[in-house]
């Protein structure tokens, strides 16, 4: 069992290296992988994972799978806006792993010497979420510029807000949202409640919401993406388990979950 584990870890590490090498966007070079380190002892204990809100469903599944694969371990998640999480980490919040929806926030944490070298593991693009009955009859990104359409976006400081603005710039439209929510899940819930006619969220969020919302795709030429880096944190009380978790995320098993959720490879 342990040897299987270490093999998986080794493969995962290699894959991570490869992925990191292929990735075009900003952060991190190869992960500081110590595959053989995993053979020494089975990881155990608890870790706190701070992750971007858009990773809620995917990481939830990954967490359960990880706990099943490593009995006796507990993974607790704190989902929220990446910027807010970054601030919490730099202020000393007890976290072991950070997965951000944007490189900028990760850089913040790295600059504060709170994170080890990060690895970009997925990419996400935006989509328009509308209530199932599509009350404002939104069919394209340009509809969002109409004053009669109530649009919810994320705050401009959080990744999904920045990316949404990029999309608007790409499409050459000006959108006046009615609200700037704290994170992408809050934006999504406004759509689910039917309080707004459209919300700018990630494709993964549309998929995760199932039939509570309908997705209106954004053409690839105007769409914008954001890359998600993940890193263990220097103040982690359980670095071995933290690393094991990161490795799992980067492994084919982790990748399968993420792709299934709609994330793209970075």
């Amino acid at each position, binding site marked *: 069992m342990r040897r299987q584990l270490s093999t998986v870890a080794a493969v995962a590490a290699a894959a991570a290296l490869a992925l990191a090498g292929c990735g075009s966007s900003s952060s991190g070079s190869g992960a500081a992988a110590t595959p053989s380190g995993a053979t020494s002892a089975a990881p155990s204990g608890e870790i706190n994972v701070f992750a971007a809100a858009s990773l809620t469903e995917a990481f939830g599944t990954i967490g359960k799978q990880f706990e099943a694969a490593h009995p006796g371990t507990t993974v607790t998640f704190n989902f929220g806006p990446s910027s807010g999480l970054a601030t919490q980490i730099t202020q000393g919040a007890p976290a072991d792993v950070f997965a951000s929806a944007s490189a900028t926030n990760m850089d913040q944490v790295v600059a504060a010497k709170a994170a080890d070298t990060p690895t970009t593991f997925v990419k996400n693009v935006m989509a328009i979420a509308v209530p199932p009955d599509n009350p404002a009859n939104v069919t394209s990104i340009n509809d969002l510029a109409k004053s009669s359409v109530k649009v*919810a976006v994320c705050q401009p400081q959080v990744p999904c807000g920045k990316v949404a603005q990029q999309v608007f710039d790409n499409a050459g439209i000006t959108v006046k949202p009615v609200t700037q929510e704290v994170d992408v899940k809050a934006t999504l819930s*406004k759509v689910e409640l039917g309080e707004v006619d459209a919300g700018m969220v990630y494709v993964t969020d549309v998929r995760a919401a199932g039939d509570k919302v309908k997705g209106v795709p954004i053409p690839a030429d105007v769409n914008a993406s954001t890359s998600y880096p993940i890193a263990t944190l220097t103040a982690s009380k359980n670095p071995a388990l933290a690393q094991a978790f990161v490795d799992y995320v980067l492994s084919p098993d982790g990748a399968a979950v993420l792709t299934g959720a709609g994330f793209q490879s970075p």
Partner: protein
Amino acid sequence: MTSTLPPAPSAARRASARSRRAVEAGNRAPWPLAVPAVIAVAFLLLPLMGLLLRAPWGNLLNVLVQADAAQALRLSLECSILATLASVVLGVPLAWVLARTTFRGQNLLRALVTLPLVLPPVVGGVALLLVLGRRGILGQYLDQWFGITLPFTTAGVVVAETFVAIPFLIITVEGALRSADTGLEEAAATLGSRPFATFRRVTLPLITPSLVAGGVLCWARALGEFGATITFAGNLPGVTQTMPLAVYVALEHDPDAAIALSLVLLAVSVAVLALLRDRWLRSMATH
């Protein structure tokens, strides 16, 4: 008859003199009370001092201008004052009904009035959405028939703030009405004053101190409201982003701005409370 003089060691005399002075001074607190009191003061003051000490004093104005503090502050003050007025207009009659009439289910009604006090504000916001949101039980008719939607509007902020703050006003005023001297109202009746005129000319003036105290509490609560506002009214600078929301947003990317905004809110609150302090403390003491 002989009398034995008690020996009078100087220490004993000194001790009794000291305690006599203490009794005369009337301000010696016994240890079991003094120590927790000091801790309580520290508990209350230290966070405020933390704000003052870590504030970006050198850069304060710049930070505030950049964070558009003026807009958030203006919005906060407008909404909290409107919410207080709404609370007075709706709350005083309800307080009167609770204090001066009896009917079945009155205790249940009183408990309901205090519900927003114990309900987490976010839950209040969700509840407001379910009723007054675009698809809400009442909200859908507001939208369909009148084209009025409350979420994402400044009016929505006022609604959310009123919801969480009105219990303060109702409870204070009800208490005052209960303990008010109904003899004066009786006298007014014998002098030919009709009930509503008596309310305006006799009852209201009598409970004015409590009304003011309740109003201040209500205003303070409305000013600080966050959860219900952000859930029901959303977050948009200039429209629904009150100071607490602005602080929360700023905290994520610009802690200095968050501290600066917090300081402004603190200063405004302290100024208002100091202005009304005397009347407030006096009426809190008598009711």
